[in-house]
């Protein structure tokens, strides 16, 4: 039979199959987390799972990290460009991470994609990405400094491990034992996805499952169209500024959004790409737009490719927001966060009650790397720290959470200190950091580390020079900062070192407020003051 045979599927079956896709991707994610060794996966859950149709359209992405969609939408087309479908067989597993040839958005996100066969016919793809906390301390002038570039190649050929390939990869990693085990966990996740999709095809028939997949994409498209139609037609513009430890002067980003009926066009402007780690490839921009528009149009749209159909996204090639080879891209999530703020800022003019004030606008990142005292083994520890979430039309913003493009967990202190020569001294909300307003912006976070052994440290942050804006008269949130104990050497481009006993304090931004502070409910204000969230007026 041909896989394109379309059968009509009743709405209940479509719903059941759609929910099965969702539960399969969730289950894949659990397997990945549980089988992995690195703190970034097993505790921080910096990984995502998805199912794709054979043309490379998302059937379902688990609700983990919106940013990872960028890696997913790139990988299948790049695989198909290099490898004819006719040569694919059960047990093939493709690995890739490159931002320009591998469909990725930065090198640490390594994608594993496995075609799913049912009775000898290829029906879909099981895909997952895990952020391998490795490739540390190498520089971000261009992508060749940022780690090993892997085009989409077979890691497994018909179920047989390509040991030579694996050895090349592992030799380029600082912590090969973790990489190997995390790759095995990624294999476990895809294996589950393959089994579950096959069972689904056994139960409902291949044609029904594939038709339901298409029906679900059409459904997502209809929901997105209805959501956009509910936004008044018009042209909405917004400009914001992006700063980073790697640059002295903030960069200007802007967007022009055209809403016309059921469709939306988003045109971005930004400076030429930089010799720094904060450039974004086009797929990173796309996944950011999909996320941001969905939050405004209708947060219940199923996470599949159909939702992209009514959207047109443009940005000049060679600029920060749509970079080309060989721009470095490791820190791309920070400008992605600013892009969400741009979209919300522009749409605030159309549907102010559906957007929120500027969030922390960054994913504050600390990457520690060093040699383990005693064994001399290399270690790398990556942590991303949340901040304030923007105030809403009728509610305060959330305090101390990951916003927009990521939603990773923190690393428990009791896991951190067992694994690395570091001690966490404080982890708390920052008083007075949320922007004042009728609704208060969310509070930023303070995380304070003490090094117990010499280590290198890379710090990424933003809103060091600008502040997250408020809406409708709401005030700005506090910006970000780093505070070092005495004697810590200078940090250049965010890179530096800590000696035993030295301390670094990372401060993440609060978020903007909503509405005039004078209209704040006196009871809410009194509670904020009693709880030390805000200083007495």
């Amino acid at each position, binding site marked *: 039979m041909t896989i394109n045979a379309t059968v009509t599927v009743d709405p209940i079956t479509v719903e059941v199959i759609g929910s099965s896709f969702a539960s399969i991707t969730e289950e894949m994610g659990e397997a990945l987390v549980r089988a992995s060794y690195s703190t970034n996966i097993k505790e921080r859950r910096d990984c995502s799972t998805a199912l794709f149709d054979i043309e490379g359209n998302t059937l379902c992405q688990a609700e983990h990290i919106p940013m990872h969609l960028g890696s997913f939408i790139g990988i299948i087309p790049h695989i198909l460009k290099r490898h004819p479908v006719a040569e694919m067989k059960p047990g093939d597993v493709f690995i890739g991470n490159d931002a320009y040839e591998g469909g990725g958005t930065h090198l640490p996100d390594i994608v594993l994609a496995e075609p799913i066969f049912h009775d000898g016919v290829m029906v879909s793809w099981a895909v997952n990405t895990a952020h391998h906390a490795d490739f540390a301390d190498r520089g971000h002038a261009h992508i060749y400094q940022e780690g090993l570039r892997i085009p989409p190649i077979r890691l497994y050929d018909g179920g047989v491990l390509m040991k030579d390939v694996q050895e090349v990869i592992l030799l380029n990693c600082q912590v090969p034992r973790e990489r190997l085990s995390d790759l095995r966990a990624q294999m476990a996740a895809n294996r589950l996805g393959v089994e579950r999709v096959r069972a689904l095809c056994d139960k409902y028939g291949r044609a029904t499952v594939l038709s339901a997949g298409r029906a679900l994409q059409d459904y997502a498209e209809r929901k997105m169209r209805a959501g956009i139609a509910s936004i008044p037609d018009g042209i909405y513009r917004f400009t914001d500024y992006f700063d980073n430890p790697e640059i002295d002067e903030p960069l200007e980003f802007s967007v022009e959004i055209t809403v016309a009926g059921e469709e939306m066009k988003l045109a971005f402007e930004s400076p030429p790409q930089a010799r720094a780690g904060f450039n974004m490839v086009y797929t990173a921009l796309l996944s950011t737009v999909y996320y941001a528009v969905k939050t405004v149009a209708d*947060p219940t749209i199923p996470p599949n490719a159909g939702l992209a159909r009514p959207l047109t996204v443009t940005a000049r090639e060679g600029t920060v927001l749509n970079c080309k080879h060989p721009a470095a891209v490791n820190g791309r999530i920070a400008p992605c966060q600013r892009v969400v703020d741009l979209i919300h800022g522009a749409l605030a003019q159309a549907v102010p009650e559906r957007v929120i004030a500027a969030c922390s606008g960054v994913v504050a990142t600390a990457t520690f790397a060093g040699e383990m005292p005693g064994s001399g083994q290399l270690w790398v520890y990556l942590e991303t720290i949340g901040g304030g979430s923007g105030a809403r039309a009728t509610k305060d913003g959330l305090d101390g959470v990951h916003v927009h493009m990521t939603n990773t967990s923190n690393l428990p202190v009791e896991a951190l200190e067992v694994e690395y020569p570091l001690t966490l001294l404080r982890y708390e909300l920052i008083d007075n950091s949320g922007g004042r307003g009728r609704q208060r912006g969310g509070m930023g976070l303070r995380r304070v580390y003490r090094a117990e052994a010499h280590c290198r440290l890379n710090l990424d942050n933003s809103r060091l020079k600008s502040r997250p804006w408020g809406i409708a008269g709401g005030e700005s949130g506090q910006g970000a900062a780093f505070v070092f104990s005495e004697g810590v050497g200078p940090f250049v481009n965010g890179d530096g070192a800590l000696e035993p006993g030295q301390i670094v304090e990372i401060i993440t931004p609060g978020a903007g407020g909503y509405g005039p502070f004078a209209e704040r409910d006196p009871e809410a204000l009194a509670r904020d003051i009693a*709880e*030390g969230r805000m200083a007495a007026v």
Partner: protein
Amino acid sequence: MAWRIGIDSGGTFTDVCLFDDTTGDVSVWKVPSTPDDPSRAIAKGTQEGTQRVGAEPSEVAYFGHGTTVGTNALIQHRGVKTGLITTEGFRDLIEIGRQKRPDLYDLQVDKAPPLVTRDLRFGVSERLRHDGSVEIALDEDGVRSAARALKAAGVKAVAIGFLYGFVNPAHEQAAKRIVLEEFPEAFVCASHEVAPEFREYERISTAAVNSYLGPVMHNYIRRLADRLKELGLTTTPHLTQSNGGVIGFDMAARLPVRTVLSGPSTGVVAAQAIGAMTGIANLITFDMGGTSSDVALLRNGEAKLASEATVHGYPIKAPMLDIHTVGAGGGSLAAIDSGGLLKVGPRSAGADPGPVCYGRGSTEPAVTDANVVLQTLNPTHLLGGRMPIRQDLSKEAIGRLAGTIGLDVMATAQGIISVVTANMAKAIRVISVQRGHDPRDYALVAFGGAGPLHAARLAKELEMKRIVVPRNPGIGCALGLLLTDLRANFATTRLATLGEGLVGDMAEIFSGLEEQAEHWFAEEKVAPADRKLRRTADLRYHGQNYELSIDVPEGQITSATIAALGQGFAEAHKRLYGFVAEGEAVQLVTYRAEAIGFVPKAQFRPQPDAGPDASGAITGRREVWFPEAGGFVDTPIYDREKLKCGNRFSGPAIVEQMDATTVVLPGMVATVEPYLNLILEMP
């Protein structure tokens, strides 16, 4: 003579189930709940129930109880004002949690508010290292002044949680001692007592929930124990835990966090027994009470047990069944929302005043009123005649609602049923479709006072083909209590590499756990022949943070035990993740012993087949509204007590019994199976 009593105290009714050990008969009694102090209704129900069967309180050999006191306090934020003493610099941890936002795309969703407000969270100077050694000694004066400040602020409970308190409890123990010196009347709970496991946020959250609920449960249990004693009950009362097993009152009062799903978990146990009885292994339970409904899924007769779950937004490290609850029941109120749509719930008429038809002053129509108007429920009386019903008042109330939306009374009443059915269907999708199970492969077990009344429409909505209505659906949970074993879990966390050298330590740790279990068996007066101990070890590859639980073979710990564990782990890992990491060290994390005290359970006997003719059970007829048949239909009323094994009849029909009413829709066929469960099948 010996009697066994199971009591489930719901939001609206308190169900009493009495089992005669000698004859094997089950009797049922039901009294209105007393939500301000549920123990009043329990005592009343016990007294009336025992009197009715002619039992003396001293003849009660077992008393089991499932309660929603804890979960209600958590949902409604009616726990006590609670303080927290924690490591300096980490007081916001219970609010930050794992720094994740609650919904990825919906920016309007809020996090559950912290159970301890920020002004009542005190950091004190102290610090342990991960090996349990002390880096900074506990600032005892700091603890003392925090305790005084909390006392002055009027808290009733204090949670204590320090980093690494599970490795070395010395600082938590010292802090608890000091708090109790300053504030002896406080309920004090240290994190190592409730969840001696790593991951500080989840452990401290468990301690905070335990403290928040502590005084509420403690007072409740004390009042109940006193009332039962006054009645002359001599047996030790028991409470169900969230895992479906029961524990003694003393332990329940110390560890209320283990009982947050106490009420609904017994229903799952009952459904399990009904599944075994009827030979239907794949079931979805639908327990619809007055104020809320619980649904759970049993696959091959087993419900999923989690060692940790987030309940109403709060992580709790305690074993619990996978049960989903929605705030909709027979007492849920119908109203028109600001957008002009008909909404049902989550507000409820509760037990007092109850629905309009109780005639106790309520004027807002509830789901029950809709059923009274449609005459699916008896329009003149409920509870076998004990409770008179005012249909005229229900009609008036629904008429007012109908006026505002421009429909007639009957269409509005039927609309209320449609909305509540859609709400229930959504709840069932959460535990079935969303977990990858097709509800059409499952049978619906309907219990709770309102379950059988709504099951047919619900099953139709979900295209489920079969419904099981237990013999006594109104007391499903109470019945479950008579089928539950005593169960307690003991655990020790100590990291070690699995190998020959571990034999000595393992033997020592398990013998320590066995000693605790023996002590518990003795406390619970479990006869040696009824004791069962299951030992497991949680293993992982060195480097992983999630373990697999592997059975420890019975008998003495030897090198063969170690080998068996290694092999069991490799097999489980291969099965689950598809690989074995050859040559990598396996780490033992937690030693566990589960102690089970078998209790004699209600034994049900199959009845002889009396043939298909059910006409002997018809006690009358009334007009019942079935829109699919064009309106009021003259419908036979069957008496559940008179239905015999093998009886068969078609819908439309109504089956009445003391504590429940079953609706059989036109076209459905009802059959009575040998254990007198009613099976409804779709055409």
